[in-house]
């Protein structure tokens, strides 16, 4: 059985005097213990909202969440705030995008780590502090005992993210959600943080949901990848399959827009035309069709369903990129 089963998850933002926005539209996926699942897509595709819904962190007013998200068989989405507070931080940990703003500036790092230990593991203040030092050491922060008394502004960006990871893993959760954990960091630090995450997850058999727009991160981390577009999953495949032959034109476009070391010199990158502003609603057809190079007449009339292909991956497309073809590249 999967550790996390998300079924038909939808999140809609209802505003007075404004049209309702459907941020997540019927997403389903599984996360197995010890595996890493990627949620990939550009800004506004619903990947962060999905994670916030699972964590119960969406604002209560003006948000409609439907569907189901079961952690080890027990439903999360219908928990009260208090019930959620007993499980968040303990069974699910979360690492956020910007470590500077995600840490409280006026509370020492040590307190921010030990508070979660005291809360969920019932340790005394002293023991929790010792445990916090051990965790800081574990995530690779030197001189952890001294660091406990310091504040976020005294730490470097990489150390802040390490501290946040220490917090998220303090209670050895079974599921860790990392929402763009390296976006705000320097490239060299990004690599360190990713390898730290990989190491910790492997060591403790924690399941990881990796939310990112960075295909490099996906390639380095994920076992299975869900590509999101306009709130729906448009392609789901194992990492290797996805990179070797992307089927959805959007996935193929994403890959063509990333520079590769093995591509010929002088070759231009091929960005995806248009922006999310060009989307049409899924009710009218495929949301991606106005930007899609492979679009057929049917694409603007009827939305495709998520279907399993012969190769065993899942695809939501009327006219996928040919499986035998290599990734298309624009030539001048």
């Amino acid at each position: 059985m999967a550790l996390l089963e998300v079924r038909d998850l939808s999140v809609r933002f209802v505003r007075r005097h404004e049209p309702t926005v459907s941020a997540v539209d019927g997403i389903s996926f599984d996360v197995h213990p010890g595996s890493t699942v990627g949620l990939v897509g550009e800004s506004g595709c619903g990947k962060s909202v999905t994670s916030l819904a699972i964590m119960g962190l969406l604002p209560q007013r003006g948000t409609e969440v439907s569907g189901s998200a079961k952690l080890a068989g027990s439903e999360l989405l219908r928990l009260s705030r208090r019930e959620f507070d007993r499980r968040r931080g303990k069974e699910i940990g979360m690492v956020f995008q910007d470590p500077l703003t995600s840490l409280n500036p006026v509370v020492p790092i040590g307190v921010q780590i030990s508070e979660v230990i005291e809360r969920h593991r019932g340790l005394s203040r002293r023991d929790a502090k010792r445990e916090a030092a051990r965790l800081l050491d574990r995530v690779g922060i030197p001189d952890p005992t001294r660091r406990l008394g310091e504040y976020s502004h005294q730490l470097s960006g990489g150390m802040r993210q390490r501290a946040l990871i220490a917090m998220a893993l303090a209670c050895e959760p079974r599921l860790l959600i990392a929402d763009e954990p390296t976006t705000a960091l320097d490239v060299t630090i990004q690599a360190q943080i990713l390898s730290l995450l990989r190491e910790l997850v492997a060591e403790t058999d924690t399941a990881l949901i990796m939310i990112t727009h960075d295909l490099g991160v996906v390639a380095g981390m994920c076992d299975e990848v869900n590509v999101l577009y306009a709130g729906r999953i448009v392609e789901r495949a194992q990492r290797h399959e996805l990179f070797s032959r992307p089927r959805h034109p959007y996935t193929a476009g994403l890959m063509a827009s990333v520079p590769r070391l093995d591509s010929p010199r002088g070759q231009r990158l091929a960005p995806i035309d248009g922006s999310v502003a060009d989307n049409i609603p899924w009710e009218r057809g495929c949301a991606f069709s106005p930007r899609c190079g492979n679009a057929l007449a049917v694409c603007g009339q009827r939305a495709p369903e998520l279907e399993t292909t012969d190769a065993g991956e899942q695809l939501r497309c009327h006219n996928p990129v040919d499986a035998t073809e290599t990734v298309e590249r624009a030539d001048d």
Partner: protein
Amino acid sequence: MGATGVVRRTVAAGPPGDAQRGERERKHRLSGALPGGAHGFPQTTEDSGLLRYTVRRLGQLLIVTVVLSVLLFGWLRALPGGPVSALLGERATEESRARLVEQLGLDQPLYVQYWKFLGRALTGDFGVSTGVQPGTPAMEVFLQRMPATLELSVLALLLAVAVGIPLGYLAARRQGGWLDNLSITWSLIGVAVPVFFLAFLLKYVFAIEFGVLPASGRQEAGLDATHATGFYVLDGLLTREWDAAWNAFVHLLLPAVALSTIPFAVIFRLTRASVLDVVEEDYVRTARSKGLGAMVVRGRHILRNAMLPVVTTIGLQTGALLSGAVLTEQVFNIAGLGQALSLGFQRQDYAVLQVVILATAMVYVLVNLLVDLAYAAIDPRLRTR
């Protein structure tokens, strides 16, 4: 790096948004460039930095006081009339006027008068009251009246803080709800209605119509109470004369409520705006993601950050309290410094006016120094950088 790191965050009544945060960071960078900032060794220089900062601020206090004393001295003497007319009336003979002028030393050039005043003031002698309590040393007038005003202001500030901060928090968390709308309206009325009008209204309704609270004075006249410190509530508590303490407290209520309206409104609005700002912060989401109880999220993560601008404002409210006391004491007939000021102006009592105004200015500067130190105690970014 505290010496140059403690920076006053000036806050308007609006929400402290990005602009202010940017401003604060800019100041940090500027202050970091000043000499005396020790970089890289935050733990060891923290205390000496704060000390140096305090000493420098006390030096500023001295300069402010001296400059103010010069201005005040000239300004009071530039007012039409003067103590002689006030004391002797319009129909006094030239002879008696001349005698009094000489007696008060007003015939000498201004700079000589000032120099003499300064010399005596350094020994604590601020001259003799000519109008408020004729014949009494001005310093004594000040010391007699100071407790009444202090008692009133402290209670008013406590009321403003005790109501303003929780209400500001609740209003922010239920933004747009009835409580929010009600308290915004209330705070608007609090700022808009003049203090003296509100004081009269309160007095009329609670003292005269319903007769539940006393209309004036500090304590019932017939009460046999010991006054050791001059703080009547405190006196009653110290001497265990509970009824005297209660009586003094009841007398304080109406004036304190009237006086607290403006500080309440400012503190409430700022707390509300600040909480609205802070609950949107990423670190509050992080705290929630850790499953911390509502109490910890509220106290440690929301309020602690939201209080930063409010603390500064509380210091600035000392000014509103001191000026409001002039009107409130007048309406409720409280023999405090505010009353001494208005009497002093009516009767052109240079000595009393000088000591009261100089002392209140010093209190204002000192309170704001304390506030800045408190700010540094709450916000580690100002201590170590």
